[in-house]
């Protein structure tokens, strides 16, 4: 096995997490990750050793996701996605009703965002990529990335405002 494969293997959990935020159902997300891995192996020569493996893989994953949705073959349809989102929320560790509602709110709010804005804010907020890295993953200039994140925040801020103030304090993951 090449060193690259080993580096790729280390990124699988992160790929799965980002894929789940895009595709949402765990099965669909793993399908997306699998396709990403296959493409990465086919295109391994394209990886620049000076670059971050994670960014490179995220780039492939995002483009794969975009292609699938553009082809009309999304990895899951919105209704399934929502059902799964709610089901996943219910499966969490002893979720309180507030927590379920909270997840539902943020999931619905993210669902309403345009795909490009959603992908941008997830990379920055969830994956903690730098603006440069996130822009690189999405194949856009940094200014455009910032703009998308800002617009996404405007929407989410307005959408989530009542829910945020109504919900109990939450536990931070990171």
């Amino acid at each position: 096995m090449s060193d690259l494969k080993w580096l790729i293997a280390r990124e699988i959990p992160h790929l799965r997490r980002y894929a789940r935020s895009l595709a949402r159902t765990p099965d669909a997300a793993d399908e997306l990750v699998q396709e990403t891995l296959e493409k990465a192996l086919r295109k391994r020569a394209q990886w620049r050793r000076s670059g971050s493996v994670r960014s490179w893989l995220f780039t492939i994953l995002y483009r794969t996701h975009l292609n699938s949705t553009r082809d009309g073959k999304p990895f899951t349809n919105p209704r399934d996605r929502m059902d799964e989102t709610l089901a996943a929320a219910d499966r969490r560790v002893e979720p309180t009703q507030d927590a379920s509602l909270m997840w539902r709110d943020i999931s619905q709010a993210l669902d309403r965002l345009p795909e490009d804005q959603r992908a941008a804010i997830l990379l920055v907020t969830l994956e903690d990529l730098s603006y440069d890295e996130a822009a690189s993953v999405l194949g856009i200039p940094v200014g455009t990335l910032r703009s998308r994140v800002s617009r996404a925040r405007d929407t989410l801020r307005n959408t989530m405002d009542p829910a945020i103030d109504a919900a109990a304090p939450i536990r931070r993951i990171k």
Partner: protein
Amino acid sequence: MDRFDESIDDRDLQAYVDGRLDRDPRRKAQVEAYLEHRPEAREHVRLDRAVADRIRERYGEIPDDPPPPRLLRTLMRGSPGGSGTRPRTKALAAAMILIAALSGWSVGRFGATAESPKPNLAEGLERHRGAADTPSPAAATTRPATMSSKQGASQQRTGKTDMLTMQAPDLSPLGYALEGTESSEGRTRYRTNLFYRDREGDLITVVLERPKQPADTAPTVERLDDVQSAYWQDGSLTVLVIGDRIEANLPTIKSAVDRAFQKIEKGALPAYYSGEPLVAEDLTHGQAPSALSPGEAPMPDRQIQ
């Protein structure tokens, strides 16, 4: 009001929300001074941070269920190196071993006990014999990790989960190579079986479990149906070894398990799933990867027990 107030723009506020100014305390202080006098902007920042927290809360957990075997197979399949790459292919499979235990199992206080908890020898022997009856795979292939039919259920967490991750013990000094792994979920715990085979086809099965109570016990050697076995407990890990010549090789086997065992503090994510590098020497057989990219950890040696 700070004299730099007017230089603060939306980009600075975004960077502040995203924590990107933590490494620029001067600029961060300027933003905070700016916010102090602008309640509307301050409210935006508060809401933006709350939304970010919601997103992390909803999606932020690294998936703690084992990666589906097909993902690993995808990586293994593409290896063009033939038999020369076999050890590291196996190492990759080993890297995916994850043992999780349900809540209520305190971790961290390991008091030695006189009585060694006896694992389910009969069940271990059954798995050992089942694997022994399976023909050894071709030289260039590795039997992929298999998951029990209950694996899906194991992904549903019913309580706080204590995580533990470790590399597969390296039994190559004894001439045994990891042939496959198998995970299953029992009524209250996960179990991982590791199957090692040597060139003659002899099999050693290592069964790893999380015990109900942590303890440290000395190995107990026992014979069951003419097959040797040894078992002991190392804190929050129960080890059962089954195979030929176990007693003679016990010091080497136990040493290999000890080296591989890595405890993770309760509540923390396992090293693999938090993205930290695994033990480099375990995965590369002493050869440091040459393709590290900037920002990637240089595979530091991890102190493992």
